[in-house]
């Protein structure tokens, strides 16, 4: 059973619909203590990083503990940003901090047609950066380099050694992160048609079989 965390940041209808369509067993825990009984956790979310202040305290502590136990965790969009130390969008709100680095605002370039927010379908790049390891990633199994997915965001996470696929919109940022059983996607897999459903399916596979974790991605680069 997967815990879908509802902390009031955006609408979970689409994520629920996608999980249901893929036959996932999931529920929305009402209290942090309930998280212990779940085999995987999904933190969705869209909107301002300040919304994650609802997670500060017991939720954050509980989710951090599940990560320490090796329970698979997937952050989607704002939920992925929350995996990092914090965001310039709401500097006073701490992130979960399981990945190093801070989330910063995309700069864009209106003259070149690079508008912010970054809205629309953009490519996942598995190569071109030293850390990218798309082909070895469990999250990206079955996807091809250059697959398009649907983004809508103004802030983004840096390309660090946890990044397995990057996307470029003026700046190059982390589109997919993966370290052990911690995963994050900046885009919306539940809105990304077949490519997105494949990524959710990949997470469901990890949730069923977390012990399949490969050696630390960092060590291979």
């Amino acid at each position: 059973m997967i815990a879908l965390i509802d902390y009031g940041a955006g609408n979970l209808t689409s994520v629920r619909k996608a999980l249901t369509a893929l036959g996932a067993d999931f529920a929305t825990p009402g209290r942090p203590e309930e998280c212990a009984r779940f085999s995987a956790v999904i933190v969705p979310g869209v909107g301002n990083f300040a919304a994650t202040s609802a997670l500060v305290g017991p939720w954050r502590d509980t989710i951090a503990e599940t990560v320490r136990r090796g329970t698979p965790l997937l952050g989607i969009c704002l939920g992925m940003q929350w995996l990092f130390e914090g965001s310039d969008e709401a500097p006073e709100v701490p992130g979960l901090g399981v990945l190093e680095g801070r989330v910063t605002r995309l700069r864009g370039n209106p003259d070149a047609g690079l508008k912010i927010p970054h809205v629309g379908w953009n490519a996942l790049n598995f190569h071109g950066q030293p850390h990218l390891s798309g082909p070895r990633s469990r999250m990206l199994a079955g996807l091809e380099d250059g697959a398009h997915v649907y983004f809508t965001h103004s802030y983004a996470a840096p390309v660090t050694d946890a990044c397995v696929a990057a996307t470029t919109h003026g700046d190059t940022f982390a589109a997919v992160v993966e370290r052990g059983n911690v995963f994050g996607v900046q885009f919306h897999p539940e809105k990304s048609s077949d490519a997105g459903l494949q990524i959710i399916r990949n997470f469901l596979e990890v949730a069923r079989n977390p012990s399949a974790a490969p050696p630390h991605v960092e060590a291979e680069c």
Partner: protein
Amino acid sequence: MLTKRIIACMDVRDGQVVKGVQFQQLRHAGDPAALAQRYNVEGIDEVVVLDITATLESRQALARTISAVAHQIFLPLTVGGGIRKEDDASAAVDAGADKVSLNTAALSNPPLITTLARRYGSQAVIVAIDAKRRGNGFAVYVRSGTSDAARDAVEWAREAESRGAGEILLTSMDRDGTRSGFDCDMTAAVANAVNIPVIASGGAGDLEHFYDVFTHGRADAALAASIFHYDDTGVGELKKYLNTRNIPVRM
């Protein structure tokens, strides 16, 4: 590289897709969920459902339509038409909409843009502008194009952005349903004035019209209805064509 989006619009009345010419003479085009599924297979990037009657009775029918479409496709889904207050928007979102499109209500009650942007995020709030040429400017109309709002489209788009709109859906009333091409000048004027994506609408008739609006019109996305509904032009065919003309699209 961010691709140019191709968006299919379904004008819905009583749970069925219809499409008019210049906001009138409605023709019948079919079941929304079935049409959405066809578009998804063909590679559409996004779907818009517009409730063109927006009466009280049609509200509940609309919620059923949104839900049926949302269960059929895993793509961004926008709902517009008759969203007057926060409750209308939340009903659409609860039924499965990712974005709501405000038109008349945004002009009569601009703080609604900000209210919805705070609640759902700017990415969920589209301000739709229906405009026609007048002199050197572009006059905004509301109430399904029946009422002169006494605003210029460029100036209103800027204000909508400043109030929290995440995208502008700009429809040329002069071109709507005529298949004579998008109004590229108007689209470029608005696209150059704001730093949020602009969706061009009204006038799509052939493949080259899309090329024109993505280049001369500086549009971030292009929306069409009848050209897709009646199988005149497939979405796949359109994307292949744009790709050969070096317009980035999701294939």
